[in-house]
């Protein structure tokens, strides 16, 4: 309770929590957008979503270890993860994409454990961070501290999101992706190679997550078991916003970032993860309950 009082008595702390939360939320919105893309186009819920974020983070870590500025890792992680996603599509997801959603759910669940454990074997389970070399700036008589890297992450997330949006609206492949999302069979009849579209979509999603992951590694911390929390957050955002609702994803992402930060401040950091996972259950049940009154359910 005391922590809540502090928030109201000290508006600067309140502001600090909100700013940090929103800056983090931009990354969440990015990851959630990738998830919504795969979900909408392929009708697959990718449980390995968070693992792509984690892999992107380890690319940044490798850059930092090699003495390069991890800022270069953002484009590098994007490219590397695109290849990873593309390969994983043809190896695994391709076989389950038209099947029952449970099968693809279980297959990507297996994929997520596989990726998580392979990273755990190679890099060990230590919690690590990649030093970006950027400093923090303080405002309001040193009471509000904003790390430059967080602002940079926010800006980069916005840029990546913008590029993606333009790509989907303008480019030929983007149109093919949207056509496949609307009706894959009709798209096939119109001469679109849907397998190619699926592979590119999955790769694109992995690339977005990879870029986000590199930013996460520089701004916060990274460890092999990080993936699941990003999966749950992005799923939550997509469920709240609804598929194909880009402004909704952005608002929900920023909102979740802020809400999570508040929860961490009020309940203590040890309950922050518990808060996220419980919130997922609460949100799903609540949404379904609302629909249930009209004899409908989440689809």
């Amino acid at each position: 309770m005391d922590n809540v009082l502090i928030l109201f008595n000290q508006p600067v702390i309140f502001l600090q929590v909100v700013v940090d939360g929103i800056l983090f939320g931009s990354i969440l919105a990015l990851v959630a957008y990738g998830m919504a893309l795969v979900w909408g186009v392929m009708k697959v819920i990718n449980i390995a979503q968070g693992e792509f974020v984690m892999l992107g983070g380890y690319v940044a870590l490798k850059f930092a270890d090699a003495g390069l500025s991890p800022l270069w890792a953002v484009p590098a992680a994007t490219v590397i993860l695109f290849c990873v996603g593309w390969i994983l599509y043809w190896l695994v997801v391709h076989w389950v994409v038209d099947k029952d959603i449970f099968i693809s759910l279980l297959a990507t669940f297996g994929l997520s454990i596989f990726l998580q454990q392979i990273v755990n074997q190679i890099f060990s389970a230590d919690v690590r961070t990649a030093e970006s070399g950027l400093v923090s700036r303080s405002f309001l008589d040193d009471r509000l501290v904003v790390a430059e890297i967080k602002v940079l992450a926010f800006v980069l997330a916005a840029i990546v999101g913008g590029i993606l949006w333009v790509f989907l609206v303008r480019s030929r492949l983007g149109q093919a992706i949207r056509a496949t999302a609307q009706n894959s069979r009709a798209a096939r009849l119109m001469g679109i190679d849907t397998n190619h579209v699926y592979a590119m979509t999955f790769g694109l999603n992995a690339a977005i997550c990879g870029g986000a992951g590199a930013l996460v590694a520089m701004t916060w911390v990274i460890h092999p078991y990080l993936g699941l929390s990003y999966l749950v957050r992005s799923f939550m955002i997509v469920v709240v916003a609804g598929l194909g609702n880009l402004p909704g994803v952005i608002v929900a992402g920023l909102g979740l970032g802020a809400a999570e930060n508040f929860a961490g401040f009020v309940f203590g950091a040890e309950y922050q993860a518990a808060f996220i996972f419980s919130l997922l259950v609460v949100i799903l049940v609540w949404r379904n309950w609302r629909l249930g009154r009209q004899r409908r359910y989440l689809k």
Partner: protein
Amino acid sequence: MNRQGMLILAVLGVGAVIGAPFAIPAFITQLSFLWLMVLFALTWDIMGGQMGYNSFGNIFFFGIGAYVCAVIQRDAGLDWHVAFFIGMAAAAALGVIAAAILGSGMLGLRGQYFAIATLGLGIAGGEIASGWDYIGAGSGLVPPLYPGALGAREMFFYFLFLVLAIICFFTLRRLYSGRFGLAINAIRDDEDKAESMGLHTTRYKTIAWCVSAFFLAMAGAGAGNMIGFIDPRDVAFAGLTFGVWMVLMAILGGKGTLWGPVLGAAIFHITQELFWTYLLGWQRVALGLLIVVIVVFFPTGILGWVREHYPEKFGQAVDAEAQGAAMGEKAEP
């Protein structure tokens, strides 16, 4: 097989499971774990196989059971056996209550939403337990030591899990053969139609989850004591080991069958004991790979494969013509 043959086989089987700990005492702990695995797979299959509700968070009830029992043992100040059995009963009761309460909200979710909500539930349980000081927080709980001699402890837990697994198996067999089994299979096949035929689907779904939670909570109570240390993330709410294994074992054996999970659990556990130690930490990587391979290339599991290829062994006289017609119907949607 005739009746006499079945009887002989049954007697041999009973003799083997009762005699096993005496014949190979060195492996008694592994054998106890085998029964625990059978319990895991069977309870997962109620939801995942028979009812078509894939749950990634059934480990939640296992964790509740482990903690409730250990807390009662710690605080009651009774004789070990009395406290243990009271704890186990309380664990089962609380597990069922939790399943009923959670079920009333979560079982309204369909398909993928239910799967991911339960994934969140299992992890939330571990996170809350590792922050809660009353139950030892992150450092875990140590249940009181079994009072008997060294060998007696292992023997006690072996027979505990054996009895639990057997009770679970026969309870499920009874349930599946009656109205309940038909109802949950109908829910799996088409929930909307089942509901419009007048089935109280929510009631059946909640009962199914409660049955699952009942056995899992008791298994948790026993396993917490058998392992001797309840870590919130690695023992009680061990989503990464037990939680994944139960899904894998049921699918491996063949989900939606009674013997499938038992077979899957036996094969998985024996393979694990034989080969896992040589993989030196890569076993979890192999686990992920195994799930992918089974799900992608072998989704019906072992029993499903046998059933497809030798339908006559399953006592259902399959009319070849009717099957062909049904398949033709499916091929052309």
